[in-house]
C-alpha cells in the first residue's frame, strides 16, 4: 500500500503549464488601397496648370488598378485643408474609408516652370509615408503629373509605374484608318500615318517607332514609321503581311505572311532583313505572334486543329504546344511582361467577344470581361498589371483599361472615332 501511495503522489505532481497559444491566419483579401486624393492646391501656379496636373493625376490613380480612388464628393474635410500633417484632420479621412491620403501642391518657379509637391499619408497612423517633388515646364505639366504618379506607384509596389508609357492604336475617321501614338491615358495623341488604310500597329520599346500593315502601296505590306518621319518598308512579299510584333529588346520582329491558302509566322531583324519562316503548316493559317518577355518563345494563333486556338512555341519554331482547349474561336494573343499569362480574345457560346487570360503553365483560362458589349484585341501594360482593349459597350468601339480580373475598368478619354487594335509599348 505504501508503494501505491507513493505512485499516486508522484502522479499528482503538477505538470508544466500550457505553452502560449499561437494561431496562424492566412488567405488575405488583396484589394485596391482606398485612396483619398483631394484636388491639388495651387500655390502661385495658374489655375489651368493646376487643374491639368490634377486631372492627370486623378486619372492615373483611378486607372492604376492598385487604388480604390474615393469619390471627392464624399470627402468630409474642407478643400482648403492644409497639406502638412499638423493641419490634416485624419479622422475625417478615416471616416470616409481612406487608408491613404495624397495631397499635392503646385507652385510656379519662374520661367514658365512649375514644381509639384506630393505628400502621401498613412491615414491610420496619421504619419507622412513619403514626399515627392517634381518640376517641369508648365506646358508639359501632364508629364510632371505622370512622373509623380510613377514615383508613387514605385514607392508602394516596388515596381515601375505605367504612367509614362505609350500606346498605339488605329482610329477610323471617314474612310481613313490611321495609326496614332499617345500617352497611356490617350492624351497627347500624334497621328503617324497620312490617311489610307493602316492596320495592326505594334510599338517599338522606344515608345515612338511603330510598325504596322498599310495599303499605302495598294497592297497590305509591313512598314515602320515614327511620327513626322517617312515610313520604311519592312516586308512586301506574299499576299498579306500582318500582325507584326517587336521582340522585348526591339531587335527583332515577328509577323504573319500569307501565301496561297496558308499563312506562316516569320521572324526578321527589326528592319525587316533576314526574314525566315518558323512555322510550316501548308494548309493552315498561323497569325498574331507575340513574344514572351525573355524573347525566347512566341505565342500565336493557328487553325491547325480545326478552329483558331492559341499556341506557344520556341522562337525557332520548335516545341509547338496548343494552349487553349476551351472555346472555338480564340485569337489575338498577347504575352504578359510577367511571363505567366497570355491574354486573348474569344467568342463565347453566346457569340459575344470577350477578353480572357490563359496561364501559360497550367492552361487555366480566366475571364476578364463579360456582358459589356464586345471586348477585343487586348494587350498588357508594361508592368503586366493592366490590360488595354477595345470595347463596343458604348456603341462605337473605344479604348478601355482594365485590371486583370476585370473588376476595375476605365475608358480612355479620346476624340470621337472608331478605335481598333491597340498596342502598349513595353
Amino acid at each position, binding site marked *: *500500500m505504501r*508503494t*501505491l501511495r507513493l*505512485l*499516486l503522489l*508522484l*502522479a499528482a505532481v*503538477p*505538470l*508544466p*503549464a*500550457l*505553452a*502560449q*497559444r*499561437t*494561431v*496562424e*491566419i*492566412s*488567405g*488575405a*483579401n*488583396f*484589394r*485596391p*488601397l482606398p485612396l483619398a486624393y483631394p484636388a491639388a492646391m495651387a500655390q502661385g501656379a495658374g489655375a489651368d496648370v493646376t487643374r491639368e496636373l490634377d486631372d492627370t493625376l486623378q486619372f492615373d490613380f483611378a486607372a492604376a*488598378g*492598385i*487604388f480604390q480612388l474615393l469619390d471627392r464628393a464624399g470627402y468630409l474635410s474642407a478643400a482648403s485643408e492644409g497639406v502638412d500633417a499638423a493641419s490634416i484632420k485624419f479622422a475625417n479621412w478615416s471616416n470616409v474609408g481612406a*487608408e491613404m491620403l495624397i495631397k499635392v501642391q503646385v507652385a510656379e518657379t519662374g520661367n514658365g516652370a512649375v514644381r509639384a509637391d506630393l505628400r502621401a499619408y*498613412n491615414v*491610420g*497612423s496619421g504619419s507622412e*509615408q513619403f514626399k515627392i517633388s517634381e518640376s517641369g515646364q508648365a506646358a508639359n505639366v501632364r508629364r510632371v503629373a505622370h512622373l509623380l504618379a510613377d514615383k508613387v506607384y514605385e514607392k*508602394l*509596389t*516596388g*515596381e515601375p509605374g505605367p504612367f509614362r508609357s505609350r500606346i498605339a492604336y488605329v482610329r477610323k475617321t471617314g474612310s481613313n484608318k490611321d495609326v496614332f501614338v499617345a500617352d497611356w491615358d490617350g492624351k497627347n495623341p500624334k497621328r503617324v500615318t497620312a490617311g489610307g488604310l493602316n492596320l495592326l500597329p505594334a510599338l517599338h520599346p522606344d515608345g515612338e517607332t511603330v510598325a504596322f500593315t498599310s495599303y499605302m502601296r495598294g497592297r497590305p505590306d509591313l512598314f515602320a514609321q515614327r511620327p513626322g518621319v517617312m515610313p520604311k518598308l519592312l516586308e512586301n512579299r506574299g499576299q498579306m503581311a500582318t500582325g507584326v510584333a517587336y521582340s522585348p529588346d526591339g531587335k527583332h520582329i515577328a509577323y504573319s505572311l500569307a501565301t496561297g491558302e496558308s499563312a506562316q509566322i516569320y521572324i526578321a531583324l527589326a528592319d525587316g532583313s533576314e526574314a525566315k519562316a518558323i512555322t510550316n503548316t501548308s494548309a493552315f493559317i498561323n497569325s498574331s505572334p507575340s513574344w514572351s518577355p525573355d524573347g525566347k518563345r512566341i505565342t500565336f494563333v493557328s487553325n491547325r486543329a480545326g478552329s483558331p486556338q492559341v499556341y506557344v512555341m520556341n522562337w525557332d519554331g520548335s516545341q509547338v504546344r496548343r494552349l487553349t*482547349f*476551351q*472555346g*472555338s474561336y480564340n485569337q489575338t494573343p498577347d504575352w504578359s511582361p510577367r511571363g505567366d499569362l497570355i491574354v486573348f480574345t*474569344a467568342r*463565347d*457560346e453566346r457569340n459575344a467577344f*470577350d477578353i*480572357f487570360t490563359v496561364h501559360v503553365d497550367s492552361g487555366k*483560362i*480566366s*475571364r476578364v470581361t*463579360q*456582358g459589356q458589349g464586345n471586348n477585343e484585341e487586348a494587350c498588357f501594360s508594361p508592368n503586366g498589371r493592366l490590360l488595354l482593349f477595345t470595347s463596343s459597350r458604348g456603341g462605337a468601339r473605344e479604348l478601355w483599361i482594365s485590371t486583370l480580373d*476585370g473588376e476595375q475598368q476605365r475608358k480612355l478619354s479620346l476624340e470621337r472615332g472608331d478605335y481598333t487594335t491597340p498596342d502598349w509599348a513595353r
Partner: protein
Amino acid sequence: MERVAQSAFSGRPSALGRWLVLSLALHVALVGGILALRALSPSPVVKLDPEPIKASLVRLGKPRDQKLLPRKEELLPPPPAAKVAPAPVPAEPPPPAPRPGPALEEEVPAPRPTAKEKPSPDESRKKLLGAFDRLGRTPRAPPEEAEGALDGEVDGDAARQEGDRYLGLVSARVKRHYDVSETISPDKRISLRAEVFIRISRTGDVMDAKLVRASGNDLFDAAVLAAVKRAAPLPPPPALLVNEFQREGVTMVFKP
C-alpha cells in the same frame, strides 16, 4: 495437517493482492509517463485555415460543358420589389376624451408600501422563495480559477480542444477583416509574415494588440493590426480559458 490447523479466518499472505498493487502501479506509471511526455513536448502551432469546411449550395442546373469558355459568376437578379401600397396617412387622431382616471397606465405612480401595511406571513414566504428563485436563476460569473475538474489534468484534452475551437472562431472573425492592399507586389507577398500579440478579455474585447514581429512592409503591418482591431469584439473565450486568454494572450501569425 498444518493446513487443517490453520484457521480459515486467520490472516495469510495473498498473492492476488501483490499482483493487484503491482498492476495498479504499472498503470499509474504508464499514464503518468504519457502525460509527462505530452506536457514536455512543444505546443504545436494551430493552423486552422485549411480546416474549416466551406459549404455552399450549388445552383440547380445543367453542368457547364468543359469545352466552353468560363463564365463569371452572375448574381441572380434581385427579386422585383413588391409593390407596396402607400401607407395610409393616419388621420389626425382626435383629442383624447378626458377620462376620470389617469390618461396612461405608465404614468400611474407605483404605490409605495406604507409602514402600516404589514405583509402577511404567506406573502413573506413567497418573497423569500422568490428571492431564492431569482438567486438560482441569476447567471453566475465564471469562477476565476476554473481550470476544470478537481481531479482533472492541467493539460487535459478538453481544455486544449476547447481552446482550438475558440481560436477557430477568432481566426474566422479576424479573417473577415484581413484586407491587404493590392499595392504589395505579388513577388513580395510570398515572404511576408507578421505577428500580433493580443490579450482577450472575458467579454471578447481586445485588451492589448501589439505588433511583436513586423514584416518589413508598412502596409502589411498596418493591415494586420487593422484586421485585429476591426474584428473586435471577438467571441468571448470559454469560461475554462478566460484566464489564459486574458493573462497569457495569443500570438497571431499573419501570412498572406
